């Protein structure tokens, strides 16, 4: 059986890739995708810990499902925002969306 640490390393790598995407990508849609990666890395962690540490309960699965639901809602809202910004400013580059500066 694959040891737990493999999963954890995988999830950490996935999270870091997601974080890098969020921090480094220009495109807002790509940033959203980075966020998806980070959320799913968390999901991997949740399921791995559930399976190896507390397989009797269902809390890990339930949380993972909840994260899916939240992620879906978040993407829906985030994409809608991106479309709206695009309509107004003709861009989806996060650098240029800086109205809230001093």
């Amino acid at each position: 059986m694959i040891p737990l640490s493999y999963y954890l390393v995988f999830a950490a790598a996935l999270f870091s890739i997601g974080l890098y995407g969020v921090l480094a990508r220009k495109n807002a849609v790509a940033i959203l995708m980075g966020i998806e990666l980070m959320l799913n890395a968390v999901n991997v962690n949740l399921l791995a810990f559930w399976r190896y540490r507390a397989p009797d309960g269902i809390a890990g699965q339930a949380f993972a499902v909840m994260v899916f639901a939240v992620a879906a809602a978040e993407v829906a809202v985030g994409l809608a925002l991106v479309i709206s910004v695009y309509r107004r400013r003709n861009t989806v580059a996060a650098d240029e969306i800086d109205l809230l500066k001093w």
Partner: protein
Amino acid sequence: MTTESIIWLIPLPPVLAFFLIVLFTNKSKWLSHTIALGAASLSWLGSMVVFVRALQVEHLGEHPFTSAINWLPLAGDWFEIGVLVDPLTAVTLFFVAWTILMIFLYSIGYHNFGQPTGDHDHPGLPPHAATVADEHGHTHKVPSIEPLYSRFFAFIGLFAFGMYLLVVSDNLLTLFVGWEIMGLCSYLLIGFWFAKPSARAAMIKAFMTTRVGDVFMLLGIVYLYSQTGTLTFREIFNEETLQQLATTSSGLLGLSAAGLMGILLFMGTVGKSAQWPLHVWLPDAMEGPTPVSAMIHAATMVSAGIYMILRMFPLLSAGWQEGTALTPALGIMAFIGAFTALFAATIAVANNDIKRVLAYSTISQLGYMVAALGIGAYVAAAFHLVTHAFFKGLLFLGSGSVIHGMEHGVLHTGDHVDPQDMFNMGGLRKKMPITFWTFLIGGFALSGFPLFSAGFWSKDEILADAFGHGQFVVFIVLALAALLTAFYTMRQIALTFLGEPRSEAANHAQETKWTMTVPLVVLAFFAVTAGWVGIPAHFPGIGGLVPSWFHDFVGSTLLEHPEAVEFNFIPLLTSVVVALGGLYLGWVVYKDARAGEADPLVNTLGGLYTVLRNKYYFDELYDFLFVRPAYWISETFTYKWMDRGVIDGLLHMIARVMFSLGSIFRNWIDKPLVNGFADLVGETVKRLGRTFRFVQTGRVQQYMVMALVIAFGTLFYYLFFLLQP
């Protein structure tokens, strides 16, 4: 109706008329003068009824008509006011009622009732003229109606109320109220044409000058009240009170209380009856319309002054017995009266204004009355007061009629000549016959034309009294004044009516309307007949033809009836000679004055004429002595020094001190400490904000990096420093 109730009602109609006209009917000229004339008639009727009933009472002096009501509650007592008709009041009511009624009637004509409204007339200015076209299309100028017609009748109504109130009063307080109402009315009426600067100056002068006398009179009244506790005549004039007042010392100049009161009260008369040295207002009062002049000079105001001292005679003469030295009050009256009589007569000689001559003549004649009273000739003074009111009223109304006729001529010819200057007149006897004959009667009465004129009998009585009482100085001065009076009267008549017209305007003068001539005729009747009641019973020839009741009747007002003086030919001859001599002289000098020639007196009198023409420079003197110092005090002393200098200076100093104190607080405490601290806080926050605002880039990814850096930083700090064992 009882006599007492009628007396109460006599003063009321004119004051009601005043309020009715002022409040309701001033739009309607016809209604206004009807109300005023009706009120005057009612008062006249009441006065006549009272007069006739008074004549029928025996011993009216001891049992006069009186009626009083409680008026003012005092501590435990009442101040009573009421009415009193004794013989003096009765005869005063008689002449006052007649002259007032005649003047009211005359005013209707004088103010051109029935004439059209003027083309350019302005309220407050005498009416100029109206242009009318006749049936042939010719336009000509006619006199226009007075713009403030109703107001005039309201004012003379109030004036008449003041006089009636004064006459029927039984105490000094209501007398003084009437006295002051007349002062107000004289002010209003002298300045009736208030848009003329000269009229404004005259109204102020009259009011201020009489005020000087009134203040002293009020002091006298207060002193009398503080000494006796009453102002009712009949309570003051009893043997005991008078004796007490005559013996109490006032503590001033060695005068007795009665003497001081007498002098103070007499000063009221000096102001009101225009005696020297307060005579200056009366000639200037000629600025008013002529009916007002007649009202002031004959019917009301100046007569009121004499009436008051007649009324107060028992007080003035308290302590004086027939044949002893005069009391101080009487002595002053004799001096001022005689002096004024001569003094004013000399000024009248050199005046050319028809009304001003009469004004000075009034001052002179009032001086006669004052002098007569001063030597104790009570009845003679009262007698002259009555006759003078009639003939002086007549003369004033006559002069108004002359001026009116002249104005008609001025309008007709279009020449701009002064319609009041006698040197522009002449020959008016043919143009204005009624005015001429009545004026002649009035003038002869004034000069004391022997036997038939009223003035002769009253003047003769004064001279006879002066002679009989041994006051020879007064006698001679008054005789001289009488000579001058006759002279200037004849001068006036000659210049106005005799000879040939000296201007085109005089050539086109016209007789005035019936409303103006009827009063002249009525007053002329009294100017002759009023003297008959006082013909001495022992007079050779005609003595006793007409019952001579005046002396006994009026004399009974006093407690001790004055005896008539022994008949003596010297004063009689004197008065005949001065009257006829003066008239003759005046006729000789002025019978053929030509147009453009100077007054013949200029050559005869030389420098003296200039002095007389300038009224002895009294106006200039008073201007120098009183008016300019008053201006100086108000402008330089009060305004510049006291107000601007001291009071404003003090205020400014306080302000300056407060200002510098405020500056110190501001500069040393408020600005550095309070403001500094507040600014420091604000500036620091601002600088902080400016320093750190660069982090707020608006880029969400930078925020993210920052959040990570801080999170990791915190984590490291936690792990490596805080969790160190």
